[in-house]
């Protein structure tokens, strides 16, 4: 069974952190169809968060078709997420590292690079959404 962690300093809404952790566990193969998620009681007993937050996260996952509640039993994984190919990750990590070296050589500091990265992410994902 998955154990949730919270990063209170992240600024990401608590329910989203729970959703992301289930998605990540699916992508990494830690969770598979048939696996049970902890009950709202179990999550709140550990994290001291509002049970509605857990239920909201589970509803979101259900809407995505990843989990399904079974009355009286709990919430179970029913969907899968494509695992990203390790070779592909490796390739992009290499090209990103090369890019960073070039940027550094051109005199850009970590803050400049972070700003460029954020702008690029915002621009490309905003286009994708539009």
């Amino acid at each position, binding site marked *: 069974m998955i154990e949730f962690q*919270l990063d*209170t300093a992240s*600024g990401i*809404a*608590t329910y989203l952190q729970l959703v992301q952790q289930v998605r990540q566990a699916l992508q990494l193969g830690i969770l598979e169809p048939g696996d049970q998620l902890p009950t*709202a*009681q179990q999550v*709140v*007993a*550990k*994290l*001291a*968060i*509002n*049970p*509605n*937050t857990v239920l909201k996260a589970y509803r979101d996952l259900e809407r995505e078709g990843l989990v399904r509640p079974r009355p009286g039993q709990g919430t179970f994984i029913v969907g899968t997420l494509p695992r990203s190919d390790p070779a592909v990750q490796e390739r992009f990590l290499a090209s990103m590292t090369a890019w960073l070296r070039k940027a550094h050589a051109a005199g850009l500091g970590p803050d400049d690079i972070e700003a460029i990265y954020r702008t690029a992410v915002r621009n490309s994902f905003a286009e994708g959404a539009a």
Partner: protein
Amino acid sequence: MTAVIETNDLGKQYGRKWALRDCTLSIPEGKVVGLVGPNGAGKTTLLSLAVGLLTPTRGSITVLAGRPGDGPAQLEKVGFVAQDTPAYAGLSVGKHLLMGAYLNANWDQELAKCRIDQLGLDLRQKAGSLSGGQRAQLALTMAIAKQPELLLLDEPLASLDPLARREFLQGLMEIVAEHEVSVVLSSHLIADLERVCDYLVLLVASHIQLAGEISALLATHHRLSGPRRDSRSLPSSQEVIEQSHTGKQSTFLVRTDQPILDPVWTVRPVTLDELVLAYMGQAHNPSPGRRSALGVVS
């Protein structure tokens, strides 16, 4: 949705001083409500009015569709843990449960025993020798074993160390998950409540400064920063809660239901902490009219 607490122009006066004034609220059921405000803001007064320990000087308050403190049936429906989570120092934990069973028609002894077991408390131990955290847990057990529909907790965390706070909130959230109970808990620190609450009531200087569903509050408030601008240049749909200016830059915290379209602004979401501080600041710098003219110029 039905309201668990509904107040209309509620006020309470002590001598010439108003402890609570112009209080109009409607708290929906099934929420965990954070009642937040500085010391002396009126939090205890509002909770005491909801239990029926105080009667209003003006206006009205309805709790679970009844008048607070109005007969045994009304008292059964409300669980209350007063400030500093009091217990009878000379009575053992077991005697506390016995007393609860005698005094409450719907007392669930099984539930009470089970919680005491989980907490690792000895039924023979005198309440006076419990730690602050254990006493708080005993008070919470007493309040929940009577199976109320509404649980009111006045600063339950104030005197607890960080570990005991966490354990108390864990216990409280387990209760919320297992029983259909609405909760109002007060604190002067929003950080204590941020994880557990889904509804906020902010009291400052005897007045309600802000009230609402936390997700909605966070969705309708934004921090804008950009080149220096006068607040009057903002569209009328954006209410300025807080502003600060430097020689070249302006920062605003605005409340609006509309998207922010002006490309000149960098828009950032606000945290609950920032929101509470901004509204507290607004209360201390009241200004007439819709737009607040406070702000720090540095």
